[in-house]
């Protein structure tokens, strides 16, 4: 919202200064004054700024749970992932606009630093996440796979494993273990990076909560995620990667007394 408002101030100011009080409608002028789409140096950078502003506008006006519910989370999420298109358009707006007129290396350096930061953080996150996905598991005939050591999961926290293409969060709490989908129904937040608070798995992004034994949000909330069967064998947690329908209650695995102390 704040980014949109800043962009809107800049955009309105630019349209009033550069395109208004002339012989054409300001928006027509904005879209037609420069049509050198075939030239990189002359590329119409203002249209790129408009693209970014329109996306930021759509994101700003739908930044409310009313729109999340009515658009459905997948559509809402796709719409908000357009922030990457907006960022690319913004970088184009700056490099093909301001940096073509201003010669200070500081401006180019600042733009480059922003781009490096965003790309670098995403590459780092991708490398970190790919480690989770790269781990291979050998299922037993009963379908269970050896997911992790019991003691590797801190109390009221989770270990995340990627099984059969789906990320599963295995929570340890109150002498029990439960596994649910790692993907929050709100905005795809990583539930496995959350905590058990008041007996509920709590998403680290916006605090949406799910009961670990059935993956359902406590009433009156209605969000549900898939659940997975778990077992504890010789100090290790085994998980069956076949998902149970969202909200299906599965009895948590009880940690044997001897292993709970480890």
């Amino acid at each position, binding site marked *: 919202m704040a980014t949109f408002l800043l962009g809107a101030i800049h955009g309105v100011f630019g349209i009033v200064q550069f395109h208004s009080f*002339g012989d054409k409608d300001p928006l027509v002028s904005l879209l037609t004054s420069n049509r050198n789409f075939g030239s990189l140096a*002359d590329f119409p950078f203002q249209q790129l700024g408009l693209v970014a502003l329109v996306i930021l506008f759509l994101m700003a006006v739908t930044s409310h749970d009313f729109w999340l519910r009515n658009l459905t989370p997948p559509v809402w999420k796709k719409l908000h992932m357009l922030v990457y298109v907006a960022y690319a358009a913004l970088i184009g707006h700056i490099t093909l*606009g301001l940096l073509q007129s*201003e010669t200070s290396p500081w401006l180019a350096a600042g733009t480059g630093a922003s781009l490096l930061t965003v790309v670098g953080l995403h590459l780092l996150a991708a490398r970190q996440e790919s480690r989770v996905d790269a781990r291979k598991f050998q299922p037993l005939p009963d379908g269970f796979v050896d997911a992790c050591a019991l003691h590797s999961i801190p109390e009221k926290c989770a270990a995340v494993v990627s099984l059969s293409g789906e990320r599963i969060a295995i929570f340890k709490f109150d002498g029990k273990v439960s596994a649910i989908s790692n993907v929050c129904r709100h905005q795809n937040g990583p539930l496995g990076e959350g905590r058990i*608070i008041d007996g509920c798995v709590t998403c680290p992004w916006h605090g949406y909560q799910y009961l670990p034994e059935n993956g359902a949000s406590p009433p009156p909330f209605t969000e549900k995620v898939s659940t997975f069967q778990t077992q504890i064998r010789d100090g290790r947690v085994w998980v069956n990667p076949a998902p149970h329908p969202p909200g299906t209650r599965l009895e948590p695995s009880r940690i044997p007394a001897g292993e709970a102390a480890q």
Partner: protein
Amino acid sequence: MKEFYIGYLPGAPAGIATRIRWTVLALLAATAASALLFAEVQRTFAPSAFDFGKSRTFRGTIEAHPYPVLVVPRPGNPGNQARYSRYLLVGGGKHGAEEQVANYDGKSVRLEGTLIYRGGQTMLELVRGPISPTEVATALTQPREDLGQFELVGEIADSKCNFGVMNPASGKVHRDCAVRCLSGGIPPAFVVAEFRGAPAVFLLTDANGTALSKEAFLEKVAQPVRIKGRAEKAGDSLFFEITPTAITPLP
């Protein structure tokens, strides 16, 4: 165990609270530093003025062609300076003043305008009220001095922004504004870094000395161009007479 905090919990753990506090302070400092740096490293521009909202009454003689000008006798003894000040006339916003002055070519008038100037370039934006012919007919004719043929490199800009309304009034960022102004009838200026040892601003005309067709230059605005033409001078104003095909964009 790593600290965990969600906004609806009563208080943030000490580590997260400290980190957020320092992060906010660092971001505020970075924002202020970026703003100062951004202001500091931008191109400088020659001092200019646009007395927006302040109009004055001027008396002089209208010269309607090639572009509207109010010629005003300079008071006292001008010495080595030209005997007349030349105020290029434009309309409000991004509009020329051809229509407003069409009936007053060569006539002495009183008009109200807002002053725009940068360096030796002066302009009036015509504002409210009619142009009134004055009783005293002091029609002036300013002969043009032929300065010869030249091939100059510079940038085509709209004279209104270039004379002081915009800073800067050149380059790609300003291009769309320049296109809109020129399309609306603001006289086209040819800004060169050096002419006879100093920066100069010409008004572009066709080879007959009349207003240049917009089609000749609208696609070549606000970019480096080379133009061959004949330079002329009238009072403090410079003109560059060209053929429409004489404008060559530079890579």
